């Protein structure tokens, strides 16, 4: 565990249901490009299999793995370490020698076949066309495409493009099928964007005997179809999360990966100074990437209709999990975390995932700003019977009254830009945490420094649920 620590490229923590609770840089990206979220079930099948195996057997295992992230082949050496039940019962995932390489190009024939198979499996409307592209039979599997079925039933036998609305096509039918294959279209009665696939059947010479028509939706159908007005508003207010983040993530990932390549001198020997510069570029890239995550979060909490779910949250349990997730970071700095007594559960009204997010932010800050080999204390109090609070206390420099006023403001970093680049925060963490606390009907405050000696204390207050 202590050896070869620096070969480490990424690490993450999973829980007892193989959900990825936290992950740093490359692993988080891979999880996302494989279609997963954090926290969410590990979406990288190769790693999921390893994590399951380690968790079931309770063994520390180490395997080479490679995965396809949609663009590149990612490979590395994964070490999975199952955690004790009291640490969440999941696994710690360490990946060494993270390496990206272009996927060996499959032959174009192979690729086409593969694409056809994917489209056949995911299409929600399929039809059989004759040689002149007239629809012979149609079958619809999506609720929002039933109008299309009705349309066909009412007047069957027309060319398929008369039932749908083709987009981005300057020419009118009849067109050669190759030009239509892959074109975008809209279906009457559906708000989703669709893509048409034409796959020839029984090709003899240049003339196919007929076609398989597949309509593949670009988005999943959300239950209780959202009216278009709301969609517009959401799109407007979620510019970063839905538009900017996906576009920026790839280039930033490339900057980091390339800078890492230079830093580790993979392409050949260079002077130490240049390697250090590359290290700075990679660090700046990582900062940018986490900033992007925070901004996306920020958008979510600032959206007008933002609501949190209401569950019963065991505060001690949440604190224990948050501490488990940050355990490695704390151990690296020799910091011990004192947790509240788990035998006296205090149940609060809130959303578990959000409470966990707040506690990770608070404990993470406490670890970052405490001196090495100090203690971070988490305490639960019941106030007046109908409120519960959980406080995180550290032994760091503390927060004075002036800072306390500004600390929850957006982009506020309290002069921490100058600490040698150790801290790569965006200045959004506490702001987001407070917004989350308020959305759950609670509050997050900093306990005035004059009340006690050294160290900072943050207190999250939520409504208490009596059993």
């Amino acid at each position, binding site marked *: 565990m202590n050896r*070869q620590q620096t070969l480490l490229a990424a690490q993450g923590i999973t829980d007892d249901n193989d959900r990825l609770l936290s992950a740093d840089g490359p692993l988080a990206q891979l999880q996302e490009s494989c279609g997963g979220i954090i926290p969410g079930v590990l979406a990288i099948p190769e790693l999921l299999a390893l994590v399951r195996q380690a968790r079931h*057997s309770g063994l*520390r*295992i180490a*395997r080479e793995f490679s995965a396809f992230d949609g663009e590149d082949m990612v490979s590395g*050496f994964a070490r999975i370490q199952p955690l004790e039940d009291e640490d969440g019962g999941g696994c710690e995932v360490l990946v060494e020698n993270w390496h990206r390489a272009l996927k060996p190009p499959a032959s174009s024939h192979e690729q086409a076949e593969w694409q056809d198979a994917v489209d056949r499996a995911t299409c929600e409307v399929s039809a059989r066309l004759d040689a002149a592209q007239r629809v012979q039979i149609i079958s619809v599997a999506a609720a929002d495409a039933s109008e299309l079925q009705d349309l066909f039933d009412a007047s069957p036998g027309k060319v398929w493009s008369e039932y749908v609305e083709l987009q981005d096509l300057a020419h009118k039918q009849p067109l050669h099928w190759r030009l239509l294959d892959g074109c975008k279209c809209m279906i009457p009665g559906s708000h989703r964007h669709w893509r048409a696939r034409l796959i020839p059947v029984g090709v003899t010479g240049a003339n196919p005997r007929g076609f398989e028509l597949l309509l593949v939706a670009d988005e999943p159908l959300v239950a209780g179809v959202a009216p278009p007005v709301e969609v517009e508003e959401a799109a407007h207010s979620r510019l970063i999360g839905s538009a900017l983040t996906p576009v920026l993530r790839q280039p930033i990932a490339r900057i980091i990966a390339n800078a890492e390549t230079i830093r580790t001198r993979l392409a050949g020997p260079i002077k130490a100074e240049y390697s250090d510069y590359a290290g700075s570029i990679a660090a700046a890239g990582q900062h940018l990437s986490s900033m992007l995550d925070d901004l996306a979060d920020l958008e979510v909490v600032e959206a007008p209709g933002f609501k949190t779910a209401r569950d019963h949250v065991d505060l001690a349990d949440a604190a224990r999990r948050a501490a488990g997730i940050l355990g490695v970071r704390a151990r690296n700095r020799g910091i011990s975390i004192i947790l509240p007594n788990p035998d006296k559960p205090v149940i609060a009204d809130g959303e578990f995932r959000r409470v966990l997010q707040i506690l990770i932010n608070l404990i993470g800050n406490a670890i970052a700003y405490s001196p090495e080999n100090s203690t971070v204390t988490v305490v639960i109090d019941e106030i007046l019977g109908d409120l519960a609070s959980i406080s995180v206390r550290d032994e760091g420099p503390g927060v004075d009254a002036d800072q306390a006023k500004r600390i929850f403001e957006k982009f506020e970093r309290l002069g921490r830009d100058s600490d040698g680049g150790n801290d790569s925060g965006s200045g959004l963490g506490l702001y987001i945490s407070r917004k989350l606390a308020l959305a759950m009907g609670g509050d997050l405050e900093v306990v005035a420094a004059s009340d006690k000696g050294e160290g900072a204390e943050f207190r999250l207050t939520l409504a208490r649920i009596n059993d």
Partner: protein
Amino acid sequence: MADLALDRTETTSVEAILRDELTRANRALSGVAPVISHLLESSGQTLVSDATMARLRGMLHDIARQLCEAVMGVQAAQEVDPLVVDDLADALASNAELLHHLYALAIEGQLTERLGRQSSIDPVLSPLVQELVASDQPDVAELAMAALAAQSRFIQHQRRMSLPIGELPAELFLSALQAMRKSALFDDDEAKHAAKALKKAYDEANGRLALHARLVTSMRSGAIAALNLEHSGFCLFATALASLTGQSREIAVVACHERQAARLALSLRAGGLAAESLERQFGILQPGYLLPEGISTLPQERATALLANCAMAGFGADHGGQGA
């Protein structure tokens, strides 16, 4: 009359049982000749030789002994009837995957020894390992150092025909523990306790095979440099061959045995070696054999595909540091 009838049925059933027994005995006897003739073939060229068998037995016994020690403590285990250890070793031997793994280790041990003798290839410290140990990246150097130490222990263990249980890949380690739990030799609670302690001490990443696999991954695209026996030594060579061709390490090791010349030639080609170096490596491992004709002009993808299509089912399943 009734008595007689009864007697006759009884006789018939006894006869039937005996007849079955004889058939079974015949079948067992008919298996003896091929096994013996295989074992009698002049040594060195057979896939299973006395030396291999001895190493296999030794390793199985060693694992069984370690399990006994884990359950009963070192002191008590020394007083255990050797027959008890034998029984446990027999139980372990019924696991085909474990046998395949140990078999590959035995072959590796023999090959490493032979290469040292015939081609003066150092069993432990090869030029490549030396380079890696002197790497200016401290983490790679440290990893190489750990791999070097593990390899030197392995050679020592092979000479003693033993194998520390923690060196097994995770799946096999687990099945060994299961064999221990199932064994009637031990008290249930004690066995459970011992299994827990063994599991806790286990870390696949620090085993010899994983250390070398990690070293090969850290070389990334430079891993092909390890496909040079004189430069890298057999252990790194086999690990790199497995990694570059997507085969299990067991298969990669066994491919280097004299009776598997075609597999070796294909593997080297699939690993990306060009004609000249392919010939050289093949020559070192298979002296006196001719390189299959046309192998150096066979496209790399074809070689990979051929290997994948003719993969040996059940031999060296996906473990031991080989990824998906």
